[in-house]
């Protein structure tokens, strides 16, 4: 550390939004040839701080030095000119343009576009780093991970010296994450400065050289990664010691509550998304679902919730008291949710589906409950109370329950959504990526909540990407591979290697060793 020189020094950086003090006199040094992990709870001001480096926000007070010079970064253009590139928490891509067009956006050059030259250059970058992206593909046709790749190429293409990545792995599969990390290490070795924001502490340990921690907008310290550990980092973020164990109570009194039989689903283009899937979930247990992205989890949950038509097969809801079976296919989502099947679906695009970005917390709580009662008027009192409860129970960082959710930090948005879904006291709870983007403390709070539901006798379906968590939390794990059931394993008797193998090949038999 001693021989390294700081490329960027941030001094006393302060930024507030209305009444929210997002950054409070932050000091931070960034060094060449180093990967810095920036940590902090949801809403602690990580994104804000980095946005001031990339020119999106302008600090209220404080100074930024590049080398010896004080600089003023007034716009993203200034940031680019200083060699700072950032991959944002929410994608910054133009949907109707192609990958190549997005990549060269805003760059200077000849007035007349020569797209074939651009495409060529992009292809060469792709082959150099091992990306798989078609430069001529439109963004709207891309999967999330492809979009993420485009974002990364965008920065590489411009040749930034200082690279900031804001939760880049939240939507990537472990394999994709590995690839990304390899690239980042290369860049570090090239003498570039890399800053990564993430909530996954194992990634921090695996990748970073140094960690810097923010707590409620204040810088609380930095340390070399090798000198610390997950528990210590968490304590620094939260400000007091926390226990990071998922308890897994034994399921009690399990009775079959939901049964899926031979379910087959095709998408609009006729591609099979689910192929002859059968399984069942019982009350008081957590069924985990694992699979690489796009293997059909989304369709499965949507089909159960009545949002997705099925080609064949059946789904039954079983009343545990009477044993009566009721088919769910053919029912409207409203009827299904009235039966107690709650889908807490955390879509890739957080604010686009589960919540209304411009509405405040209270109104977002109402989404599930507004129909209640016979009156033509909607009840606003109980949603308000619910909002207050979620804010305190999940420690949501918000000025008030009247704040539009769009103003909250990424993780806090997530808490609102999950909090609302769990609150509806369902009998079947389905969560998909429930902790995506949540800080570690909040993630554990969510696991606790899910366990509480399980103990209340709720049948829980938990779709997750973090295999460690799946193995620790779930009673049984169903593994999907290309739309087929690759296997169902006992959470207590498996490990993440086995699951990983089964995710990439049916039954996990013929897989390569290193999966």
């Amino acid at each position, binding site marked *: 550390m001693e021989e390294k020189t700081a490329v960027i020094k941030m001094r006393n950086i302060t930024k507030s939004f209305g009444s929210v003090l997002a950054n409070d006199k932050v000091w931070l040094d960034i060094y060449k040839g180093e990967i810095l992990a920036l940590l902090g709870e949801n809403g602690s001001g990580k994104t804000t701080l980095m946005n001031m480096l990339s020119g999106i926000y*302008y600090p209220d007070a404080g100074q930024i030095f590049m080398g010896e010079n004080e600089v003023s970064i007034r716009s993203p253009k200034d940031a680019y000119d200083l060699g700072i590139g950032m991959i944002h928490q929410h994608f910054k891509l133009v949907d*109707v343009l192609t990958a190549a067009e997005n990549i060269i956006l805003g760059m200077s050059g000849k007035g007349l576009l020569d797209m074939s030259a651009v495409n060529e250059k992009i292809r060469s970058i792709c082959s150099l780093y091992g990306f798989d992206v078609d430069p001529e593909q*439109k963004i709207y046709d891309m999967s999330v991970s492809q979009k993420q790749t485009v974002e990364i190429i965008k920065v590489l293409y411009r040749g930034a010296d200082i690279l900031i990545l804001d939760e880049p792995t939240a939507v990537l599969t472990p394999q994709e994450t590995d690839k990304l990390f390899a690239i980042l290490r290369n860049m570090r070795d090239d003498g570039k400065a890399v800053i990564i924001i993430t909530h996954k502490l194992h990634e921090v340990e695996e990748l970073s050289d140094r960690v810097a921690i923010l707590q409620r907008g204040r810088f609380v310290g930095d340390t070399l990664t090798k000198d610390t550990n997950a528990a210590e980092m968490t304590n620094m973020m939260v400000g007091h010691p926390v226990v990071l164990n998922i308890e897994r109570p034994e399921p009690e009194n399990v009775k079959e509550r939901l049964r899926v039989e031979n379910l087959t689903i095709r998408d609009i283009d006729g591609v099979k998304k689910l192929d002859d899937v059968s399984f069942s979930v019982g009350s008081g247990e957590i069924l985990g679902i694992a699979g690489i992205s796009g293997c059909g989890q989304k369709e499965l949950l949507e089909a159960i919730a009545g949002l997705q038509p099925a080609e064949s097969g059946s789904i039954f809801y079983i009343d545990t008291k009477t044993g009566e079976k009721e088919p769910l296919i053919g029912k409207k989502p409203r009827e299904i949710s009235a039966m107690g099947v709650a889908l807490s679906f955390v879509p890739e695009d957080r604010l686009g589906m589960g919540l209304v970005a411009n509405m405040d917390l209270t109104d977002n709580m109402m989404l599930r409950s507004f129909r209640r009662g016979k009156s033509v008027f909607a009840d606003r009192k109980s949603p308000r109370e619910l909002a207050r409860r979620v804010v305190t129970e999940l420690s949501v960082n918000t000025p008030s329950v009247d704040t539009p959710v769009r103003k909250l930090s990424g993780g806090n948005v997530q808490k609102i959504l999950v909090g609302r879904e769990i609150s509806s006291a369902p009998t079947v709870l389905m969560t998909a990526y429930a902790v995506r983007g949540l800080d570690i403390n909040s993630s554990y709070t969510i696991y606790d909540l899910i366990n509480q539901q399980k103990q209340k006798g709720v049948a829980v379906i938990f779709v997750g990407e973090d295999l460690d968590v799946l193995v620790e939390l779930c009673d049984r794990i169903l593994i999907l591979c290309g739309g087929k059931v690759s296997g169902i394993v006992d959470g207590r008797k498996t490990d993440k290697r086995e699951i990983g193998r089964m995710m990439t090949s049916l039954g996990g038999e013929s897989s390569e060793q290193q999966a």
Partner: protein
Amino acid sequence: MAGILSLVQAAIVFGTVILFGAIGEILTEKSGSLNLGVPGIMYIGGIAGLAGAYLYESSVSAPEPLLCFLIALFCTLIASCLAGLLYSFLTISLRANQNVTGLTLTIFGSGIANLFGGAMNKMAGGVGQISVSTTSAAYRTTLPFFRGISVLSSLGVLVYVAVILAIVMTWFLNRTRAGLNLRAVGENPATADAAGIKVTKLKYIATCTGAAITGLGGLYYVLDYIKGTWANDGGIEKLGWLAVALVIFARWKPVHAIWGSYLFGVLFWLYFYIPGLDRSSQELFKMLPYIVTIAVLVISSMRRSRENRPPAHLGLPYFREER
């Protein structure tokens, strides 16, 4: 036959006014600004051109046609550009609501134009006495190589300017770096901004240039279509709204606006050339352009293409620190 030629001519003349309005508005909308002030800008462009021509022609004994042409053109471009600037300042810098600002600009433009139009009529010694015959003749100069072709033989230069502008704009939007950046701004200004594009500057330029082009529609209306008089019957306003409609009809593609405008012109004037319509069926017949537009709109919406959408951020203000 003569009737058909006459109809085609009427359609092209009519179409040219809305074509200018539409391509100006397409450029504006591509940058994300929904300027409903098109009719107002056309008014302002029209009156400015007429006033420039009138003041020049009445101050010299033998007006020079080329100078007449340039003066009117210059006045129109400056005035309509200023109108665009006013709109830009309010909506881009002050982030005022675009719809209201545009509609207000229409009220303002029609007021100011008719106010000055009235004053000019008075100055000229009575209604219909504004004489800008040299300028009007200059604008109605036909292109030499088209003289032999009957339909084209009586079309003034601006007709061709409109078509060329539409083609150039298509090329600009699709093939140039600035065009790409502009489209990105209209689709997603936050992304464009993060990519280092100067969003505000680009929006200003596009909106003001678009307004200048829109203003040419007014100039063409005043100096060529109604041949150098001022009429306060709201004719420009009606055409201005049709120009806004044409933008959507053409699906934000300037080249589609060319045929769209002429098609609209044909349908608009057709009833004059259909024999045997009595007065009431004529009124029903006059619905044709609107019904056809609706039909085309419905059919093209049934295809649900991603490419036929308006710019995604159209009509919304952009503030970098907003989330």
